[in-house]
């Protein structure tokens, strides 16, 4: 491109110069490949595919991999991660993080148990109060982060411990079971049934994918994280966006907690916790959501949670200790960040 043409293009005057079109099958494949690489979800999709091939055909576990019970297991692990990851993606995009959803996850089933068994609240109102509790925790996170100005890392760290202490104190760290009144169709459809986790995860992921890519809320979330001052100057209610995304994340934590309690038919004092949050953030990050704010994808986080579920399940099948898995995840997060940074450069160069 000559210097004058380039300048004219930069300034925005004159017709855009025609690009030389590549021809032929090879060029077509190249273009397709390039278009694929332009997608932020591309890397994690390839990783998921490779893992599927590895565990399904190559590893010593391949004979057990393509079975119904194993697939159900994978979807159950995936769903726990993916649902919370939807909230974390929204928060990471608007420049915040929530460390506490795993403890809303922990507290919600206990709260349901207390309400029904100690206070005689009927099942459905009790569940609704649990979800409301999630929203309130999110609002508290929002209040201290947005209104008071404490960094979200600290705010949600504190609420995580508070919820943890509250749960352990009130339950005496004793496990319990979902009350008789939620057993039956509620427990059946929201966790116990083999594919119910998958359905819940897919529905929630679909909803938040649309929210992020096709609604004002999503656009304003990106604007808030991309340029907070600019967004507020344009009239975007930045505080409302952040409050809302904290509330969404905690709500999803509560939903996940109830779902897992229904699935396992037990209310466990060691459920959820920082690990649930860590998996969700990991899924978001390896799915292509930058920690810097302003960009991210729900679909990527969904694929990321599939990758994590395949790893957790596959390692278990092969018989590798679960202890090493954190090591692998840590390395995967680092690798994902490096790849994302590099790919972002390639993408920027590809568009230019």
């Amino acid at each position, binding site marked *: 491109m000559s210097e004058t043409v380039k300048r004219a293009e930069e*300034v925005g*005057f004159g017709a855009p110069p025609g690009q030389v079109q590549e021809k032929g099958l090879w060029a077509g494949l190249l273009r397709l490949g390039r278009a694929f690489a332009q997608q932020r979800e591309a890397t994690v999709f390839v990783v998921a595919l490779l893992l599927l091939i590895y565990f399904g055909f190559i590893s010593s576990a391949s004979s057990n991999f393509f079975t119904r019970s194993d697939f159900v297991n994978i979807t159950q692990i995936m769903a726990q991660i993916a649902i919370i990851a939807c909230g974390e993606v929204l928060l990471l995009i608007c420049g915040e993080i929530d460390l506490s959803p795993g403890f809303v996850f922990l507290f919600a089933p206990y709260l349901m148990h207390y309400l029904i068994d100690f206070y005689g609240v009927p099942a459905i109102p009790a569940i609704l109060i649990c979800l409301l509790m999630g929203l309130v925790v999110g609002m508290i996170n929002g209040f201290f982060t947005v209104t008071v100005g404490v960094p979200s890392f600290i705010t949600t760290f504190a609420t995580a411990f508070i919820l943890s202490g509250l749960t352990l104190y009130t339950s005496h760290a004793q496990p319990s079971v979902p009350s008789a009144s939620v057993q039956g169709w509620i427990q059946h459809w929201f966790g116990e049934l083999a594919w119910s986790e998958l359905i819940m995860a897919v529905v929630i992921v679909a909803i938040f994918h649309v929210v992020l890519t096709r609604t004002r809320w999503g656009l304003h979330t*990106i604007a808030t994280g*991309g340029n907070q*001052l*600019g*967004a507020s100057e344009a*009239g975007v209610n930045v505080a409302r966006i952040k409050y809302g995304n904290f509330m969404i994340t905690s709500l999803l934590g509560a939903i996940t907690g109830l779902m897992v309690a229904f699935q396992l038919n037990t209310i466990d004092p060691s459920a959820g916790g920082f690990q649930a949050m860590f998996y969700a953030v990991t899924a978001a990050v390896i799915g292509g959501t930058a920690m810097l704010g302003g960009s991210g994808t729900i679909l990527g986080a969904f694929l990321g949670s599939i990758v994590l579920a395949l790893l957790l399940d596959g390692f278990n099948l092969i018989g590798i200790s679960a202890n090493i898995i954190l090591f692998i995840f840590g390395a995967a997060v680092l690798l994902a960040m490096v790849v994302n940074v590099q790919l972002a450069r390639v993408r920027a160069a590809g568009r230019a």
Partner: protein
Amino acid sequence: MTTQVPEDQAARPGGGGEVLRVEHVAKRFGPVTALVDLNLRLACGEVLGLIGDNGAGKSTLLKILCGFQPPDSGRILLDGQEVKLRSVDHARSLGIDVVYQDLALIDQLSVYHNMFLNREQLRGGLLSNRAMRRVARQRLDDLGIGLKSVDAPVARLSGGQRQAIAVARAVYSEAKILLLDEPLAAMGAKEAALILELVRDLKRKGDVSMIIIAHNYGQVLEICDRVNLLQHGQITLDKPASQTSVQELNDIVVAEYRRALEERQRSA
């Protein structure tokens, strides 16, 4: 220092009456006084140039007028009616729009999403991207801003293109008062010409009044009907553009530098 607002200029060029009046507005930020007893008038269809040194309070005044922050005291009248501007959205709904010095563009979003930020077109509750893309394209073409694609994120545009998009965004908001904060800062001659032509176009159509903050007095005098000089939070000069010159404005500001320098030397 006294503020003079000659009566005969209140309702000049546009022919219509007064669209905006600012009375005794003051604003402090902690120990810093940004505006003291500021008075200003804008006639219908008029282009008012607001000049003054850095820190004189120009941007503060603009942020008050666009509803971004409230004044500590004083009144703002729109078409003779006193208004309290509660938010940027509220000011916009009353017909006041602004192009910020920092442009308020979101790098990660596409050109058309930026142009429609916070006034998105919806269909069934969802963003109508196709409609926004089409309208954005058409508006940019109408304004003579040749962009290859409205889908590109604004991060990839040049300074002038970014400026043009911010102006285009405000122009099409059906504003009757447009506030431009240094629309020509950091622009090459070609890009500045594009923006100046845009302003002239709007002026010819005559249904929008503008306040333009600028540093380049030559450009101000070229497109403005009237010039106000802001010093230490007050309007200290108010003249029609035809009755002043770059020389006069320069002399005033240079005199100010001298005074500041002398004061510093005296206190040292």
